[in-house]
């Protein structure tokens, strides 16, 4: 009897997804897909609104990486008003304030995804009881670890509160700069800690928990980790002038399995390089590099991709960890899905170190926070790209001379990963389910584990219209989709 | 055509307060209000074009964009719907090729528009073709009218083939019927000898007149029922160099048409009442604010005024009394129910939007142009004339303790003899129903939508009187076969359309109430929803700025009280936890619609 197995919703991710796996009479997986079941229409609904409200409106796409959306939007608006050029550069302090917020988000977002959503598997195993393998179980098993994570996350959130006025969906960036800088007291609170937040030194220590957890787990389950869903794809990231990853600005670079550069282009030229396919079975589009076509030109973005693209990381502990990471694959690109979590742990440390550098940077205390290029500099169009926690995020806006938004195109990290996510679902389904007569909840959870490694933000991804349920669909032997819908 | 802004401005003395007159001149000349002419008017008046449009766009007879050569306004009223409105409407669309509310037909000949009650409930369906009225429409008659217009006849030629002069009552009688069914002591039984009356009154002191009016116990006939004598005394004692008398002939309450009949049959009785009022309060300026729907009365009424002027009964030093200068002008409205509210009417007379003012101050203290103003209804002025002819005691002897005299009723709906009846206050509902030949009556809309919908079975013994069933003159009978809930909806829609929008409870609340009734009708309401709607109604009535909001929920409230089954029978038992008001079909209909639209796009 052919079977269809549905995971609905995929849990411990952000957003709505549904996975459907089809098995034929011989218990072979015939198809497996990630269906994104939400659509919201942000490209259209922002039109007609005043351009200066766009970055604040569009950050509501996502409650996890709102800072990335806010900043991608702010950069697009900068270009629109003619700021950020050599004639009207964004003040140094403004860019650093934006970076501070961005890194703090990287820290708290990764910490949330990693510890709350991913680590339970490392501790309890993929086929542990669903009631146990989550943050509640983690708290019951290791309250000390959870307490450290809570404090780490809180420190990151408090920086966001300070920079943006709120922990989530606040405001900092305005056209040409930021509205507020950092006071000495605010800086010292995060450097030295107080009754409410840990010190910078403690944060660096907590940040290393992630690496330790990963290495322990890896050591105990090396084969399982290294062979689980090895999914080849190109890797893409924003890189600075030195060719190393820059979360805030730079060019887009794509590398192949040998970490050779296959594409390198300015962000504002993205339309010449990127296209998006549409499938009837998902609200989520499938971006790829035009020159290579969809099959060869689909890219992976996010933690694993960034480590693949970059040569090193700019802070000492992270650089050392990155070296170890690169050495593990002997310099070739890492395609092991679960190693995304290693990369994530490295980036937690990197983000903490980057914040430390900034907090010690006197520029942040400057009051020169905004440039006004004047009406003559208006261009009416801008592309803003940042590296969000989950990967490359692009906002492209146009507004008319009256200031009304006329166009927005948004390509978010999880969308970039759509093809790879589906390949991962298929790979895990094949590995775990093919040939099995009895399928258990734990085997299906393995598919979710594969997805969680990408920390998919289906909320972001479904900015286009609604929600993304994760469902595993099982097709019949003829590849026909089973008509019945399961909830 | 060819009338430019300057000519219009000159004709009206470049007086901003005459803006409605200017707009009418422009619209009659151009068919709409062209931008450049509006700009010219604005410049001439030292204001902005937006300011002119602010006034113009308030009134539904003014149009800032061109329409067909003829604009046809079909009265959409509850009574019309009982009398074949739907067939007439369909035939109009068919014959003209235009759609209601849509663009003109392809030849540019006709625009079709809805309009609320035009004061012809005893001869519906009725329509205005521009300012020319046609009544008792049937599909065949409509086809004939349109055919004639297409053939080149003007509406005026179609309606008045004999070419009767417009200032003659024969012309008015040719267009519309007056249907006076009873000739009572106050109205119609015998004509007022207005010359003698005015002469006799001017012998008295103003105080004496005020006393007589107070003694008569007269209460305003517009609906609110304020003591006329008290109002006059307030106005007389109010400080102001100049004072005004305004006659409210903006008879907009759906179902009423008595003022039209009074102005047709007894105009000078009305004007005499105004002259007496002017004398009693010391006013020099009189205005008759005539609703635009009654434009076919303009020339006739102008002639009545001219005759009075020729008689020395209007104008400077009237009847030789130095210092008593009083004249009356006609002010034609622009299509707005709320202008029947006295302060909105004054705003309109000043050339503004018909937005009710905040009270206090009341018009008697600060009215037209900020000066003391006595504003009374057509029927009130006619009554005043008769009171001063016959004496206050004579008047006081009729009616009830709190409601002296008689009341004109505009009777329409399911009865064999619709028309105008004069009844003493205190007459019972049943007595009136018998008088008018009511046919299997179930309910009566007393005082129009802003009044009460009462049950014939339960309320037959109630009296038409301020102390019981107050009535502004509208009396519409609904037979047992009528869909009362549908009628409630029509009335609520009327208030939504006619709200000026200035205050929140009325602007927003009435729409919500209408939507609530729509949900009931669609079977998307449960008992709790009605309780909510009652609460909304209380808030609208209590918090609104003027009488419109104070009364607009009454169609809902009075039927809920008297006919709860029309609501209960539509309740739906919610299935599961989903609220009755959530319309699942509607919620998902948009998806299929969007997909169809997109499929057409891509194929």
């Amino acid at each position, binding site marked *: 009897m052919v079977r269809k197995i549905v995971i609905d919703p995929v849990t411990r991710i952000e957003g709505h997804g549904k996975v459907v796996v089809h098995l034929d009479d011989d218990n072979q997986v015939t198809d497996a897909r990630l269906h994104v079941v939400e659509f919201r229409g942000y490209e259209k609904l922002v039109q007609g609104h005043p351009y200066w409200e766009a970055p604040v409106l569009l950050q509501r796409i996502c409650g996890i990486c709102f800072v990335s959306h806010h900043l991608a939007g702010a950069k697009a608006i900068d270009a629109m008003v003619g700021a950020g050029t050599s004639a009207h550069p964004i003040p140094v302090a403004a860019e650093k304030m934006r970076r501070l917020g961005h890194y703090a988000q990287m820290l708290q977002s990764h910490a949330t995804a990693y510890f709350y959503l991913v680590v339970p598997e490392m501790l309890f195993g993929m086929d542990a009881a669903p009631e146990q393998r989550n943050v509640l179980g983690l708290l019951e098993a290791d309250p000390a670890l959870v307490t450290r994570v809570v404090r780490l996350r809180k420190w990151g959130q408090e920086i966001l509160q300070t920079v943006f*006025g709120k922990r989530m969906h606040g405001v900092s960036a305005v056209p040409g700069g930021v509205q507020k800088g950092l006071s000495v007291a605010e800086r010292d609170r995060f450097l030295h800690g107080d009754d409410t937040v840990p010190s910078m030194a403690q944060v660096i220590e907590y940040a290393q928990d992630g690496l330790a957890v990963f290495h322990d787990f890896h050591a105990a389950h090396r084969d399982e980790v290294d062979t689980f869903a090895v999914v080849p794809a190109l890797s893409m990231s924003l890189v600075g002038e030195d060719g190393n990853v820059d979360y805030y600005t730079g060019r887009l670079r794509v590398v192949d399995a040998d970490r050779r550069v296959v594409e390198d282009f300015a962000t504002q030229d993205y339309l010449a390089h990127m296209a998006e396919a549409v499938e009837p079975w998902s609200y989520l589009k499938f971006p790829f590099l035009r020159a290579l076509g969809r099959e060869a030109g689909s890219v992976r973005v996010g933690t694993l991709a960034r480590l693949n693209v970059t040569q090193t990381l700019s802070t000492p502990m992270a650089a050392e960890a990155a070296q170890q990471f690169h050495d593990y694959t002997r310099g070739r690109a890492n395609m092991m899905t679960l190693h995304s979590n290693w990369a994530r742990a490295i980036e937690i440390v990197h983000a903490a170190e980057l914040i430390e550098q900034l907090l010690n940077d006197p520029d942040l205390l400057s009051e020169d926070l905004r440039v006004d290029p004047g009406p003559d500099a208006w261009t009416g169009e801008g592309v803003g790209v940042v590296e969000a926690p989950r990967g490359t995020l692009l906002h492209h806006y146009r507004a008319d001379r009256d200031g009304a938004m006329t166009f927005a195109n948004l390509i978010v990290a999880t969308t970039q990963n759509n093809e790879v996510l589906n390949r991962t679902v298929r790979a895990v389904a094949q590995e775990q389910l093919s040939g099995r007569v009895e399928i258990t909840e734990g085997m299906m959870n393995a598919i979710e584990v594969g997805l969680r490694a990408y920390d998919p933000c289906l909320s972001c991804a479904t900015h286009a219209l609604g929600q993304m349920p994760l469902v595993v669909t099982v097709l019949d032997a003829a590849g026909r989709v089973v008509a019945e819908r399961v909830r | 055509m060819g009338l430019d802004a300057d000519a219009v401005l000159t004709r009206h003395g470049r007086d901003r307060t005459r803006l409605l007159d200017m707009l009418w001149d422009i619209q009659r000349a151009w068919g709409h209000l062209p931008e450049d002419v509006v700009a010219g008017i604005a410049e001439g008046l030292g204001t902005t074009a937006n300011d002119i449009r602010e006034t113009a766009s308030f009134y539904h007879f003014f149009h800032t964009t061109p329409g067909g050569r003829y604009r046809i306004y079909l009265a959409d009223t509850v009574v019309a719907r009982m009398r074949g409105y739907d067939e007439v409407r369909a035939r109009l669309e068919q014959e003209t090729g235009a759609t209601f509310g849509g663009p003109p037909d392809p030849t540019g000949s006709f625009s079709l528009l809805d309009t609320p009650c035009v004061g012809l409930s005893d001869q519906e369906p009725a329509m205005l073709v521009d300012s020319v009225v046609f009544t008792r429409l049937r599909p065949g008659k409509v086809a004939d009218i349109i055919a004639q217009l297409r053939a080149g006849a003007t509406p005026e030629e179609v309606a008045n083939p004999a070419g009767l002069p417009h200032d003659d009552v024969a012309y008015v009688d040719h267009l519309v019927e007056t249907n006076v069914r009873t000739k009572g002591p106050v109205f119609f039984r015998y004509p007022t000898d207005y010359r003698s009356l005015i002469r006799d009154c001017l012998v008295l002191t103003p105080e004496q007149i005020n006393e007589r009016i107070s003694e008569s116990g007269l209460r305003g006939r517009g609906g609110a029922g304020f003591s006329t004598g008290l109002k006059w005394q307030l106005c007389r004692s109010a400080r102001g160099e100049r004072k005004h008398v305004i006659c409210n002939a903006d008879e907009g309450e759906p179902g009423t048409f008595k003022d039209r009949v009074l102005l047709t049959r007894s105009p000078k009785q009305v004007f005499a009442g105004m002259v007496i009022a002017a004398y009693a309060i010391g006013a020099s300026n009189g205005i008759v604010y005539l609703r635009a729907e009654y434009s076919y009365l303009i020339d006739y009424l102008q002639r009545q005024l001219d005759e009075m002027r020729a008689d020395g009964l209007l104008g400077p030093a009237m009847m030789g009394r130095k210092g008593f200068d009083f004249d009356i002008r006609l002010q034609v409205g622009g299509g707005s129910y709320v202008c029947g509210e006295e302060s909105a009417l004054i705003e309109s007379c000043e050339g503004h939007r018909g937005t009710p003012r905040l009270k206090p101050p009341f018009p008697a203290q600060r009215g037209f142009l900020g000066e003391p103003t006595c504003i009374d209804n057509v029927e009130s002025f006619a009554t005043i004339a008769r009171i001063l002819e016959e004496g206050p005691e004579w008047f006081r002897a009729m009616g009830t303790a709190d409601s002296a005299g008689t009341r004109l009723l505009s009777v329409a709906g399911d009865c064999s003899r619709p028309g105008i009846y004069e009844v003493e206050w205190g007459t019972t509902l049943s007595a009136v129903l018998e008088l008018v030949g009511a046919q299997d009556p179930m309910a009566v809309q007393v005082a129009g939508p802003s009044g009460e919908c009462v049950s014939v079975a339960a309320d037959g013994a109630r009296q038409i009187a301020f102390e019981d069933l107050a009535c502004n003159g509208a009396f519409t009978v609904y037979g047992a076969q009528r869909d009362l809930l549908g009628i409630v909806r029509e009335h609520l829609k009327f208030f939504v359309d006619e*709200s000026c929008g200035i205050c*929140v409870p009325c602007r927003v609340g009435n*729409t919500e109430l209408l939507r609530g009734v729509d949900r009931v009708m669609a079977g998307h309401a449960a008992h709790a929803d009605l309780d909510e709607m009652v609460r909304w109604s209380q808030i609208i009535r209590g*918090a609104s*700025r003027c009488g419109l909001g104070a009364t607009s929920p009454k169609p809902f409230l009075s039927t809920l009280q008297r006919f709860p089954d029309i609501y209960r029978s539509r309740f739906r038992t919610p299935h599961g936890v989903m609220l009755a008001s959530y319309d699942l079909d509607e919620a998902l209909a948009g998806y299929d619609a969007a997909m169809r639209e997109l499929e057409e796009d891509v194929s």
Partner: protein
Amino acid sequence: MTIQLTIDGEVVTTTEGTPLVEVAAANGTYVPTLCHHPGSPCLGTCRVCAVRVNGAIAASCSLGARDGMVVEVNTPELRDLRRTIVEMLFVEGVHNCPSCEKSGRCQLQAVALDMRLEGARFPYRYPDREAEHDAARIWLERDRCIFCQRCVEFVRDRETGKKIFSISRRGERARIELDVELADAMPPEQVAEAVDLCPVGAILAKGVGYDVPIGQRRYEAWSLRNRVLGRRPS
């Protein structure tokens, strides 16, 4: 003339004719308002200041104090009434606080917060209202307009006294219009005044926004209630 009246049972003394809403504030009773602009003529449009005076509901901005008046403000019924009116405004427009530039210094928002406005009892309408953005420095976001008429009555061309903002149409279709030529002649400080005068985010200065950090915005630094009652932030 000095007179006495009671507000929620307390006897207060005031000058005859003082708007009740101000008498209440002077005596420590907050009555929310949206259209009322102290020192300017009464508009009486929003009705949010509804109270009971001698048993009848009245807008307390539009009624002058008289001797012996019995004024009720804080009864459950009146609180519900005022809140309902605010809910009406929220469903009538699109009050998109999350991205609105005026958030934090929006009077409607402050009033609603003070009332603990939750889900509205009316279905939301989501009207599609066209923004007016032809002027060089003013953006009129009609979605957020509550039709209070402040701009219409109190913003005039400084040379000619002409209206810069006006109304068109009526009822639920009524909306604010902007005279673009006169708007472009407004000096920058008058634009700022107009933005400030607007109790919601309907009048915006183009390209200007979010200048004050969250947490320090007008009604965060000093709540509307305390401003009205004259209680300085501690």
